[in-house]
């Protein structure tokens, strides 16, 4: 049943030899250079560098000096489908995911219409089967229309393929309504994921409440708005024995509440976004709406606490909360702009450049946390191991690039890292056994190598 | 550096002569002195002291900051010191003698005349300069000249006064060596 909760366009199974890359997959216990042979989309064999023969009818990629990671999993993206395809579609969103090294993503239901009924979900599944370049899972909403009042038909939505439920974009304000959902989860299963915010405290806030908001005269959202709700809902989850995942955590107080809930034995998990791990409210002094998100960028002490929590495993995984918005929507004064940043194409590079290269986090920790989202949602995303479906990405850690200099695969350009120079360029992504992405320069280089055939199955820029 | 063309004594004698000329040309005394900042204003003050010995009643003194009337914003930088205009007597029906240190293209005087006319309608306007160095670009001529000093455009004429420069003299300096090109405008 669970294999029918990820949907994508079937592609040609990869026939590929990746030679000599440094393979790092913590889940598979791999941490040294290997040849990796992929046949019919599965990992046929792993061998020491140079030991495996080139596959007939397939490509050979000389990858010495490059790194091979398991494909990343993003449990929190907004694909804006249905209803807002001018910002992103399943096609462009999954293209962005593949370009970022992701082999699976989970899409949020705050679309138009909201994914709160089985027919809407089934239609989305069909679209994904036609368009998605990497497997997409869907969350349905907890309440109808995200109104926070009436529960959706959770069991039927699970039958239609929903991985779980969230009202993301909004909190479930009523403890009573949330409690009912947590109880109902015992019947229908699925993860209940929560966007934590107390609207009475966040009100018309547009950024973190602190010295910077005092300076700018912009209404602030105190950390308390998030952490009090995390504490409340963790207590509810423990009381009901429910499985709850806390989304886009942003402050030290939330980390403490999550740690406390785990110590008490609750079945809870948490995610954090690359922007909260690398940026603070100081950058909002620029009043550039690229830096307007919900939850907002907070203080350096929060950022450090989030990094430590991710390192310690208190926060279980990285998620981008990829939130595309059109140029004309973001190019307005800060307080008027919608909240959100894209993130799929920059997630790994941002974390590698700002945290691994600086020594704050180890590379294998980042890799593990960027794949951990799969297990949290019970997704069958295989590690790099013989006879398993290939999910991996080839990355050049030495390559530098300017974010956005060549445009984006996403339909939208609202990246909070726009214009920055980052290290760690994704060259190739294989998702569910199919090559989902090859970077343009890499494809051009491949086309010149004598052993390569026509690269017609490679997706290029 | 440069050649001194008027020393302290020369300057004093010259100003005395100009003061006499002003008094002779304006015997009925409805005259006022208005100096152009910065050094023209200093000279005007000295002329006021000198003419006050010759004319009754005492000659009123004003000064002009012509910054707001210039036509050459793109050529000259703004003065480092911000000054103001002081014309605290009525301008109507008077003879206004504009005083400046050096008369060159005539643009500064043109700006000064425009500014004076924003205060009222003088009966006539006369011009007193310590040095006329030629190269007029407008039809402006002085009524009182301390010294005519023909110059080339590569030369610069400096009028130094005690009150600002710590000495009284007029000197000419060559601005450039022959092989250097003229200065080009630079973005601030």
């Amino acid at each position: 049943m669970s294999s029918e909760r990820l949907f994508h366009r079937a592609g040609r199974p990869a026939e590929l030899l990746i030679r000599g890359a440094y393979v790092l997959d913590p889940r598979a216990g791999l941490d040294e250079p290997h040849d990796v042979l992929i046949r019919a989309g599965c990992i046929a064999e792993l061998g020491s560098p140079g030991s495996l023969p080139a596959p007939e009818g397939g490509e050979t990629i000389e990858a010495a000096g490059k790194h091979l990671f398991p494909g990343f999993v993003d449990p929190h993206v907004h694909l804006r489908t249905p209803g807002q395809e001018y910002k992103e579609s399943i096609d462009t969103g999954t293209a962005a995911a593949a370009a970022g090294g992701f082999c699976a993503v989970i899409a949020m239901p705050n679309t138009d219409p909201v994914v709160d009924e089985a027919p809407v979900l089934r239609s989305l599944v069909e679209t994904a089967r036609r368009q998605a370049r990497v497997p997409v899972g869907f969350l349905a909403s907890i309440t109808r229309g995200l109104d926070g009042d009436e529960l959706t038909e959770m069991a039927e939505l699970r039958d239609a393929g929903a991985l779980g439920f969230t009202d993301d974009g909004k909190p479930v304000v009523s403890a009573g309504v949330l409690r009912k959902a947590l109880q109902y989860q015992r019947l229908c299963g699925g993860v209940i994921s929560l966007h934590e915010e107390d609207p009475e405290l966040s009100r018309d806030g547009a950024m973190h409440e602190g010295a910077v908001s005092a300076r700018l005269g912009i209404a602030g959202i105190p950390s308390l708005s998030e952490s009090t709700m995390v504490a409340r809902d963790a207590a509810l989850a423990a009381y009901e024995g429910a499985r709850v995942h806390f989304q886009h955590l942003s402050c030290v107080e939330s980390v403490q509440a999550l740690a406390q809930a785990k110590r008490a034995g609750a079945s809870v998990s948490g995610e954090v976004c690359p922007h909260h791990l690398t940026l603070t409210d100081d950058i909002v002094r620029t009043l550039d709406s690229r830096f307007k998100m919900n939850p907002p960028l907070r203080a350096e002490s929060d950022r450090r606490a989030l990094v430590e929590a991710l390192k310690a495993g208190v926060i279980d995984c990285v998620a981008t909360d990829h939130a595309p918005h059109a140029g004309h929507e973001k190019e307005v004064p800060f307080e008027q702009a919608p909240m959100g940043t894209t993130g799929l194409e920059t997630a790994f590079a941002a974390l590698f450049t700002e945290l691994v290269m600086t020594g704050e986090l180890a590379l294998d920790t980042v890799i593990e946390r960027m794949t951990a989202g799969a297990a949290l949602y019970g997704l069958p995303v295989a590690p790099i191991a013989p006879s398993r479906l290939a999910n991996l990405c080839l990355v050049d850690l030495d390559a530098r690039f300017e974010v956005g200099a060549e445009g984006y695969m996403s339909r939208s350009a609202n990246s909070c890292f726009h214009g920055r120079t980052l290290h760690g360029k994704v060259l190739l992504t294989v998702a569910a056994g199919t090559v989902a992405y090859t970077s343009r320069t890499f494809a051009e280089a491949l086309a010149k190598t004598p052993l390569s055939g026509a690269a017609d199955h490679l997706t290029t820029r | 550096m440069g050649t001194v063309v008027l020393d302290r004594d020369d300057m004093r004698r010259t100003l005395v002569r100009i003061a006499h000329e002003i008094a002779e040309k304006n015997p009925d005394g409805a005259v006022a002195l208005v100096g152009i900042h910065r050094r023209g204003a200093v000279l005007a003050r000295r002329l006021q002291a000198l003419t006050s010995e010759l004319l009754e009643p005492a000659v009123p003194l004003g000064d002009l900051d012509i910054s707001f009337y210039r036509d050459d914003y793109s050529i000259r930088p703004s003065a480092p010191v911000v000054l103001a205009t002081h014309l605290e007597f009525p301008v109507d029906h008077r003879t206004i003698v504009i005083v400046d240190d050096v008369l060159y293209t005539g643009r500064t005087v043109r700006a000064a005349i425009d500014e004076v006319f924003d205060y009222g309608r003088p009966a006539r306007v006369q011009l007193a300069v310590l040095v006329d160095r030629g190269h007029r670009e407008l039809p402006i001529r002085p009524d009182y000249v301390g010294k005519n000093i023909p110059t080339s455009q590569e030369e610069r004429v400096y009028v130094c006064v005690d009150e600002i420069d710590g000495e009284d003299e007029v000197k000419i300096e060559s601005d450039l060596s022959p092989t250097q090109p003229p200065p080009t405008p630079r973005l601030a």
Partner: protein
Amino acid sequence: MSRIGPHLLSIDDLDRASIERILDRAESFDEVSGREIKKVPALRGRTIVNLFYESSTRTSSSFELAAKRLSADVVSIRSQGSSVDKGESLKDTVQTLSAYDPAAIVIRSPYAGAAGLVARWTPAAVINAGDGKHEHPTQALLDVFTLRRRLGALDGTNIWIVGDLLHSRVARSDILAFTRMGATVTVCGPPTLIPREIEALGCRAATTLERLGEADVVYVLRMQQERMRDSFVPSLREYAARYQITPERLLPGQLLMHPGPVNRGVELSGEAIDSPQALIGAQVRAGVAVRMAVLYELLVGSTSLAAVA
């Protein structure tokens, strides 16, 4: 020489020397305003656009008059009845305005950062006439000008800013400007209206008028009726009892200021407004001269193309 420009978006754009220069220039323009012909040709042939997204008679007319006294052509666009109301975005409006080839755009907006955005979209000099609750730099400059005339240098002067700090862009610009000029600033108001971490701007904070006697200058902010409705203060009566400035609360030597318009009987008693300690009228008169100085310095002054002598 300190650099002024290319825009005036925030008091942060000006160091102390630049502020002094603008104030010196404003003195010259004050002289111009005393003449019979209150005009100089300095900006003749240049076009200034006033783009006001918030209603404001006092600031907009002050800017208009300043531009006209510099002989500039002025185009004033107000949010009522223009295409702005019909949903045209700020960016589109600014790009349409480029047809006038403005030398400067003066913008007032309900949103922080609007002036900074406009500066990205136009080669014109941009002057922030108030952006959300963020800054109002020309108000701060005219406040410093007024005080400087009365007190000379502001070093060591103790200034209290009393009222609704949370929603005041005037206060934010004033705190920065006063401290930059050497004064010490204390802000005072109900705890609900003092932003958390306001001290990061370089001032102290108080919630009662107990130590008001330390101040040389008391700067009072408008208290708007909406604040009562939103429960920032429980009632007008309670606000007035604790924070209203009256002659009884002031010591004889203390100076009184207010950015206007005054809510008579709310933040200031009628007697206080009319007392000889009040500099409110001087502040208003300073507005045109200071704005002329800002326009002049941005468009003509130290940023002009210049050959170094």
